[in-house]
């Protein structure tokens, strides 16, 4: 056991920093660091830069275009690129359906979808939740009926993040019925431009358009778009959910936001002195920083114990729970440091073309909205209550 970074790992950090400094568009990183609105275009520019460097799916095997990085390298990349303001890539292809296709897809599916996914030509979204099926995902009702060489899909998905940007959706549908509700679920890949698909925006608490309803009315999906076996979609869905949990810890972004919190605490004053010099704020910030350090070490520990390619165990639920709690506490503390200067709410000021003045302090403007938006993290990807149930049953044996 040696939990210091090796010389090789330190050199790699420098390589990442060097690459990001040179290839991340500065207007994009500025927006990320200032919490402004990020467009598909912004993400895509960074996506393409990574693709060209060969770093777009670095954890994948080399034969599929990856770099075979181990979990420590992936972590270093996350931390270093996030610190410099790299936007979060769309995870639905690269981190979600991509690994599923590597493991369960046909060769044809791999050849059809992976190259465009890596190049950024084709964007994906995820069709899991339904209005009546949130935490109880397996109770879903969207049906796919086999008719000749197609499935005909009818139903409604919801909370579909960035459906408005997507070219493809992978969805769980009911293709049969079984004694258990987990049976008879299949996974289909579906073109978002198919006739019968309608995307309806859902505005979130912060007033932004991030998630959507996706309605299916007699949407035809070729049978070759079935992933794995018909009726066996549930095990694939679970594989994917547990993968989601490790990434969801968001250590890189939280470390960046901690730096931002400290900057806010220098700019904002409390009783005439910078807030960071007040022992009460300093104590709260230190507590959060220590918790984040513990999370980071835990991520590395869990990732290391998985080895390369292994499936994350139920312990990964810890990362989801603590990762999102820390993300939320960061937004809370930022808001608390900013105080009343975070009251003004001018969404137009977070876009690209705002030339007007911003009341309050410019850097405080999006904090309240971000606080509200970040409440989602303890709900999505399996609520934190569901994660606690998982640990209780599968780790503690209660």
């Amino acid at each position, binding site marked *: 056991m040696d939990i210091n970074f090796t010389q090789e790992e330190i050199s790699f950090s420098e390589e990442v920093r060097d690459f990001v400094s040179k290839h991340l568009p500065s207007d994009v990183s500025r927006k990320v660091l200032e919490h402004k609105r990020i467009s598909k275009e912004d993400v895509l520019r960074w996506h393409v830069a990574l693709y060209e460097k060969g770093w777009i799916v670095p954890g994948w095997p080399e034969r599929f275009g990856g770099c075979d990085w181990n979990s420590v390298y992936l972590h270093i990349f996350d931390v270093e690129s996030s610190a410099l303001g790299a936007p979060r890539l769309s995870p639905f292809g690269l981190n979600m359906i991509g690994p599923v296709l590597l493991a369960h897809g046909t060769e044809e599916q791999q050849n059809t979808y992976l190259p465009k996914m890596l190049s950024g030509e084709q964007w994906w979204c995820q069709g899991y939740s339904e209005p009546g099926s949130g935490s109880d995902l397996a109770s879903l009702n969207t049906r796919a009926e086999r008719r000749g060489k197609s499935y005909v899909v009818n139903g409604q998905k919801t909370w579909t993040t960035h459906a408005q940007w997507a070219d493809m959706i992978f969805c769980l549908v009911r293709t049969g019925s079984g004694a258990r509700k987990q049976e008879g679920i299949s996974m289909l890949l579906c073109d978002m431009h198919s006739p019968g698909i309608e995307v309806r925006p859902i*505005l979130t*608490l912060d007033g932004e358009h991030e998630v959507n309803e996706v309605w299916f009315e007699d949407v035809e999906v070729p049978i070759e778009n079935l992933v794995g076996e018909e009726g066996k979609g549930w095990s694939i869905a679970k594989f994917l959910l547990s993968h989601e949990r490790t990434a969801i810890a968001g250590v890189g972004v939280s470390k960046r936001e901690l730096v931002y919190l400290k900057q806010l605490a220098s700019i904002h004053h409390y*009783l*005439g002195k910078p807030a960071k010099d007040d022992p009460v704020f300093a104590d709260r910030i230190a507590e959060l920083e220590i918790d984040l350090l513990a999370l980071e070490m835990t991520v590395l520990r869990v990732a290391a114990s998985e080895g390369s390619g292994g499936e994350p165990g139920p312990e990964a639920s810890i990362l989801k729970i603590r990762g999102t709690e820390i993300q939320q506490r960061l937004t809370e503390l930022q808001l*608390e440091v900013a105080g009343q200067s975070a*009251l003004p709410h001018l969404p137009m000021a977070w876009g690209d073309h705002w030339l007007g003045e911003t009341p309050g302090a410019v850097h405080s403007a999006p904090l309240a909205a971000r606080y509200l938006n970040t*409440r989602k993290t303890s709900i999505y990807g399996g609520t934190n209550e569901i994660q606690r149930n998982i640990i209780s049953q599968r780790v503690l044996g209660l």
Partner: protein
Amino acid sequence: MNFTFTDEQKLFKEGLDRFLEKNFSLDARRKMVEAKESNSEHVWTGLASMGALGVPVSEDSGGLGGAGIEAMIIMQHLGKHLVLEPYLSSVILAGGLVDLCGSEFQKKVLIPELVAGEGKLAFAHSEQLNDEGGEILHTTATQSGNNWVLKGEKKLILGGATADRFIISAKTSETDDKSAGVTLFIVESLDEKISGKAYPLIDGSRVLDIQLNDVELGPECVLGAIDQGQSAIDCVNDRATAAICAEALGIMEVIHEMTMEYLRTRKQFGSALSQFQSLQHRAVDMFINIEEVRSLVMHAAAKAWSESEYERVRAVSAAKALTNRAGRLVAQEAIQLHGGMGMTLELPLADFVRRLLAIELMFGGERFQRRRFADAADEGSEKTVFVSPKKQWKQI
């Protein structure tokens, strides 16, 4: 010690609730926000005709009397119905200053208009937004013959966009003590030397920033004694803080009820959410928090009009510190227990949560209020609130 509302208070409460139920709705609120409005005449004149705008202005000043408990009732209901009207800013803050410091003539001009809903006031005080508890005023009023010339900027004026007149604080003497040398002035919002800009807060309410470009005022515009304005400012700020805690209480009650209803009806894994013990216990913690806020809101309502500065500061800071902490817990748990639905702008929950957040960010954070609570000097308990140039006003 008596916790029962008087019959008069009960009648007033019910009347107010019925009126708002009938004359205001969340839809109406959303349309107003969309249209960049923060006041609708029929609600405002309705409140006036119920007498709400004359409470808690003292009868001596031409108001209808009543004090903290009555203000609490009004604010709690404005919270329950999420009303946008500028009652806090016009009546409690600015009206309170006129009540406390105004000359007979000033009161005669301003209070009847205020009570009748015909003239709105706003209190323009904040300048820096990023120094909690350490703010220094830079707006100055300098004498020029008999007149005064005001120069400076004021920010985040609650109810500013709809006000007919501002009460403006300005430095009239330079002193090391940052709270000394402050004087209040009454200024017409139409004054052409004032420019400004209205904008929305996170809850959809609208505030105003203004520039005072050498605004010239006659001596009749001075409100209260020269250089002695700070203690009245502290006093109305505390009353407003107590009042906004009552508003938060009304909001939390609605949020809690919405959440209980959701838990009872929404099913997952074949059972209503209300059957899951971990969710039950969290619902209980929301409830306990709200009951504690209710207790300190009552306490603050009773003490915010007290003559003892010590009692006032302790009660108000305690209430706001607890309201902030509890409000955050209640809002966060409500969102979480609603699951994805809790994240949507569509549910009424969103509007309540956003207003509660705005209240948290106004009038001092949790830590600031706790420090103020701890630092309040006990010897203050015998001191009266502040020295007025006129005879002592009656406290009801």
